[in-house]
């Protein structure tokens, strides 16, 4: 006679529920509900957060049509879209390769020396966003107080200060936002890859050394093949991060360091439209919903590729 658990609220499930409830509540209120509300807003002509006036009005797909129209005809929106694509692809490459490079490099150099450097590379991610933005604001400043400008002028490479974020279109602003975000993302890969490398048996490296392998050969033929899953993990995770990040670029645009068109990504655009300037929440929500769909699809593909099933081990015991 087979034993079945009765109903949903078995003792086990209700016990687990108590532990899960706080997280579940927070997730529902601050993840799921907002998305639902954003979807709703995207069907209203909400502006300036004037809830009383616009909230009840449903205008169907008007915001979506507006967005797609702007995508085709408005150069600013087109450039935002272009910026997003360039930004994600190049920064992703920097993040993954940079993380990999740092992990490998610090492996081959003595531990005492590498530790402080690994720490320094955590600074971009752990520093307060406002401070981080301030650093690069001055570094890339278009006048002679800009660090990069004065450096190049001192070396005689340029005669006058260049407004990197505005004059060199589009690669000036693109380079800046890629650089700034690239540094932040490198640390994630660096940590993952360093940990992966440390799990590789030392004997493999010793044997290769005895065979006369160089650092590059060891990296290419031993480390990287054994880290395939980790590389995939970092790449896909960072892809999602880059699709959704906006805080680290926000101030750069807000402070005028980079041109609005070429310094704004899709994610930032949504925030800008919703909360700054002309504030058209309906439009922002429409653009946002599309981004959610893209993100959701990518996210799901990511999990399947990473072998989500294998990552989850079943708990033992039937208590």
């Amino acid at each position, binding site marked *: 006679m087979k034993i079945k658990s009765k109903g949903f609220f078995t003792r086990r499930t209700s016990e687990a529920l108590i532990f899960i409830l706080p997280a579940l509540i927070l997730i529902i209120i601050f993840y799921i509900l*907002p998305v639902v509300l954003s979807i709703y807003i995207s069907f209203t002509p909400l502006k300036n957060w004037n809830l009383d006036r616009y909230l009840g009005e449903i205008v169907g797909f008007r915001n979506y049509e507006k967005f797609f129209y702007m995508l085709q005809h408005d150069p600013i929106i087109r450039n935002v879209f272009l910026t997003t694509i360039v930004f994600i692809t190049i920064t992703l490459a920097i993040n993954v390769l940079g993380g990999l490079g740092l992990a490998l490099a610090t492996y081959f150099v003595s531990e005492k020396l590498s530790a402080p450097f690994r720490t320094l590379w955590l600074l971009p991610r752990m520093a307060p966003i406002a401070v981080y933005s301030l650093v690069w604001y001055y570094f890339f400043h278009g006048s002679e107080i800009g660090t990069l400008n004065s450096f190049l002028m001192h070396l005689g490479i340029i005669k006058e200060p260049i407004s990197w974020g505005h004059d060199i279109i589009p690669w000036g602003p693109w380079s800046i936002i890629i650089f700034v975000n690239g540094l932040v993302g490198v640390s994630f890969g660096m940590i993952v890859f360093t940990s992966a490398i440390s799990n590789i048996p030392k004997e493999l490296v010793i044997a290769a050394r005895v065979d006369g392998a160089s650092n590059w050969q060891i990296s290419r033929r031993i480390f990287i093949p054994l880290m395939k899953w980790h590389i995939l993990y970092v790449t896909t995770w960072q892809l999602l991060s880059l699709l959704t990040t906006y805080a680290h670029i926000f101030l750069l645009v807000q402070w005028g360091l980079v041109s609005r068109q070429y310094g704004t990504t899709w994610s930032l655009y949504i925030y800008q439209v919703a909360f700054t300037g002309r504030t058209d929440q309906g439009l*922002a929500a429409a653009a946002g919903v599309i981004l959610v769909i893209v993100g959701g699809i990518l996210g799901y593909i990511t999990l399947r590729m990473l072998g989500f099933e294998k990552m989850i081990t079943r708990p033992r015991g039937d208590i």
Partner: protein
Amino acid sequence: MSLKDVEVRSRKTEVLIALAVILATLPIIIGFSLIILSSFSKSMVTNFDPKSFHPTLENWINLFQGKSAAVGGLREDILKYTLNTAIVALGVSLLVTLVGTMSGYAISRMNFRYRKQFLLLILLLHAFPGSVLIVGVYFIYRLIAPLALGSITAFSFFYVIIARAALEIPMATWLMKGFFDLIPWEVEWAALIDGASRFTVWRKVMLPLVKPGIAAILLFGFLAGWQDLIYVRTFLAEKTLATFIEYNLGAPEYAEMPLVAAAATLYLLPTIVFFVTSQQLLLKVSLAGLKR
């Protein structure tokens, strides 16, 4: 981990690699150092002009006396902003730790229905664009705020803390799960056989055994709250160091930038302190949190 004793390596390549790493790290070092340096000067020293460096402590003195930096000579109490930042940071830290240890435990140790789906949800949350979320989060805020009894300010703090903490739940859960996974099953079973309820096992046996994990989450939660810009600027009725800096750079001609640099350095301090004291913990924690 390196094999200095066992390996034969070429000095030359080692030096070259080290040089490359230093070169790559240079912008970070220079960028941050200049800002910190500027806080000790009468004017910003972000260009390599030794003439602009006029050493002084007056920025710091002004900072701690609550003198202003921005437009119109308004008195800005920077210490108050620091306190606000700390309140948010502390609130986020405690909430994230509490929720993370609870959900992390359940996922690690309890086989409940929809456990897999819950985990899948948590991982997928990473794909939710923050900027879309905040539109909805603000919407909710606008709906609830009028119902807030008492001060709007207090409510805005409360709201910022729980909203910001919610963003860290996936990471915290995953991290704590990693730590709980490391505890032998028998210790927990022994407690259950001894007659403990799940909650008692969690409180009296499991939590003491994951102290490093708890320390890590407290730290990460604190830093997440401390460094936040978007949520505090969107919701908080008062300023924090982040919004203070943002505001001043809105009109840089009128702002006393070295004072802002001092505020920025002060703002940076916890991050640096955290680095200096817990380098090992950081790496150990990141490794423990990462599965596979």
